[in-house]
């Protein structure tokens, strides 16, 4: 399933939107303008973009602590995202969640989460719901390499396997959990050995090539929709920033590694392809970027000019009624 030009432009636009949104956050966090923990998705944009392009609005995704990219790719509104990250009343969670708990149920984004691995069984529930509804919808779950060492990973694979759930596992293997290398933390060596042991088909792809992600996810999603059961995509990638932006801990990843991976920038690579193939002229590319920058600025203005919730709002939403 080769993406046509229209799709390529959309994929690029999604990636660049994530990039510009995240770059703005990097600036605002360094300036001390945003409270709490913000985990940047920069470097991994191709995964969210390439996978979510195959998802319908009714398909549900479950995200993790590094969740902005999934939100944007699933179609959430930048304004309400930025407002949430600033803790404003107009944010998706009315300021109660912040970056780490961002969610937009209206587009099927069931939330970022602060507990490593915990989204996996929640996604088996979302996939189970889709199976019961029988409309060909699916669920997808994003998680890191570090999450694969939590027991829930194994349990979720098994549940998806025995019940043939319509679930796409998307492992964003950026090779580290904070400073711990996956190569150290994982006896399997290759993550994809684990789903395969559970009889779940798995593929390892280069997660910085959005076309490759798009093709692999397309094939996987098509199979899942047909009722073939779960599929596992391991996407090799790299995180550009510290584990979270304001982190005090040293970044202990080997010198040079980041530079090497910056040369494999998913956004720049795609831009180059679009230009070289003549899909988009430099002027068009600039226009896209400018439009995105305006959207990010507008989102930021919206967040800044939005009111904080009233203190007493803290008492609401403990329970639904």
């Amino acid at each position, binding site marked *: 399933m080769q993406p046509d030009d229209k799709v390529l432009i959309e994929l690029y636009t999604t990636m660049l939107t994530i990039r510009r949104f995240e770059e703005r956050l990097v600036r605002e966090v360094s300036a001390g303008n945003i409270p709490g923990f913000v985990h940047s998705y920069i470097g991994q944009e191709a995964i969210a973009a390439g996978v979510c392009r195959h998802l319908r609005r009714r398909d549900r995704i479950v995200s993790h602590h590094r969740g902005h990219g999934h939100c944007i790719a699933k179609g959430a509104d930048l304004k309400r995202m930025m407002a949430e990250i600033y803790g404003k009343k107009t*944010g998706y969670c009315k300021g109660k969640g912040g970056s780490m708990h961002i969610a937009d149920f209206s587009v099927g984004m*069931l939330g970022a989460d602060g507990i490593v691995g915990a989204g*996996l069984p929640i996604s088996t529930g*979302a996939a189970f719901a889709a199976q019961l509804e029988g409309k060909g919808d699916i669920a997808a779950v994003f998680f890191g390499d570090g999450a694969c060492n939590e027991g829930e990973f194994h349990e979720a694979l098994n549940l998806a396997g025995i019940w043939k759930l319509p679930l796409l596992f998307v492992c964003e293997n950026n090779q580290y959990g904070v400073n711990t290398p996956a190569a150290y933390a994982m006896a399997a060596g290759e993550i994809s050995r684990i789903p395969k042991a559970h009889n779940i088909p798995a593929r390892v792809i280069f997660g910085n090539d959005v076309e490759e992600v798009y093709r692999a996810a397309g094939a996987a999603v098509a199979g899942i929709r047909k009722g073939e059961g779960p599929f596992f995509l391991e996407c090799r990638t790299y995180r550009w920033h510290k584990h979270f932006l304001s982190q005090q801990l040293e970044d202990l990843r080997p010198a040079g590694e980041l530079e090497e991976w910056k040369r494999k920038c998913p956004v720049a690579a795609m831009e180059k392809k679009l230009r070289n193939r003549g899909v988009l002229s430099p002027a068009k590319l600039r226009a896209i970027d400018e439009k995105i920058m305006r959207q990010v600025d507008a989102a930021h203005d919206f967040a800044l000019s939005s009111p904080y919730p009233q203190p007493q709002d803290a008492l609401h*939403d403990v329970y639904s009624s």
Partner: protein
Amino acid sequence: MRKITYDQAANEAIQEEFRKNPRCVHLSTDLAADLTEEFGTERVRVTPIAENSFVGTAIGLAGSGFRAVVNLRMATFGFVALDQIMNHAAKLTYMFGGQAKLPVLIRMTVGAGFSGGAQHSISPYSMFMNVPGLKILLPTTPYDVKGLLKTALVDPNPVISFEPFLLGRSEGEVPEEEYFLPFGKAAVRKRGSDVTVVALGRMAHVALEAAVELEGKISTEVIDPRTLVPLDRQAILRSVRKTGRLVVVDEACRTCSAASEIVALASSDRTTFARLKAAPARVCGLDVPIPFSPPLEKYVLPDRAKIVKAIRAVMRRPSA
């Protein structure tokens, strides 16, 4: 009226609501035979032994428009699922600013007294009460368990039902007609004027026996809160204001128990405090893991004699 057991009554609640609502799903290790027969293996799923993930699955179902019932069996098996229960079921609705309703009913048995040993003989409800976002039931009769589970099964929130293991086969009257019991409404099991005994779970029955034993000498009011969250604070405070004396009976270990909360509630309420005639007392499980051997287990758990003794003690005026 017909009599059925506690377990049958609970089962009826689930069956009735599963008939009405095709979006109800049931998850448990091992077969729920009657349920499977009537509702099929699509909606009544046997799970592997993997509590954290099938509770997580229930949350995902609920967040996707279904209603999930999870039977964890004994509360101790739920300890591997506490992350999903406490960090997720309890908090997601709030963290997401009310976007997600999470109708998940989690059932588990609690209590000691059957030589189950330290792990299987627990009454851990207080730790769940410290986590806002959960509703918590502690039904003590067939009538109550049916009516409360019925309500749980139409409530849009995560609800935990703690069901005393030893009451499963106890019998009681349960009407044929449908009924629902409200949360946060205590039952006064016996009216009295000298002392208020708030008794939780199986202890509601034992405390009632103690009250009956004292009849004629001490007039004991026995209150069974039935739900711990919401807790019927008003019923408790009203009674204590009337009697001026409070004994709380709970087979959980004493420190940081629900009994501690109820004592704190009554003593920190100014009006109630002003009417207290004696220091409130707790009759609880001793602060030890529950031992296996029957004489040891008997020693650490509350029983009728200990309750009688505590009631007698609060009837005396404070010493100092």
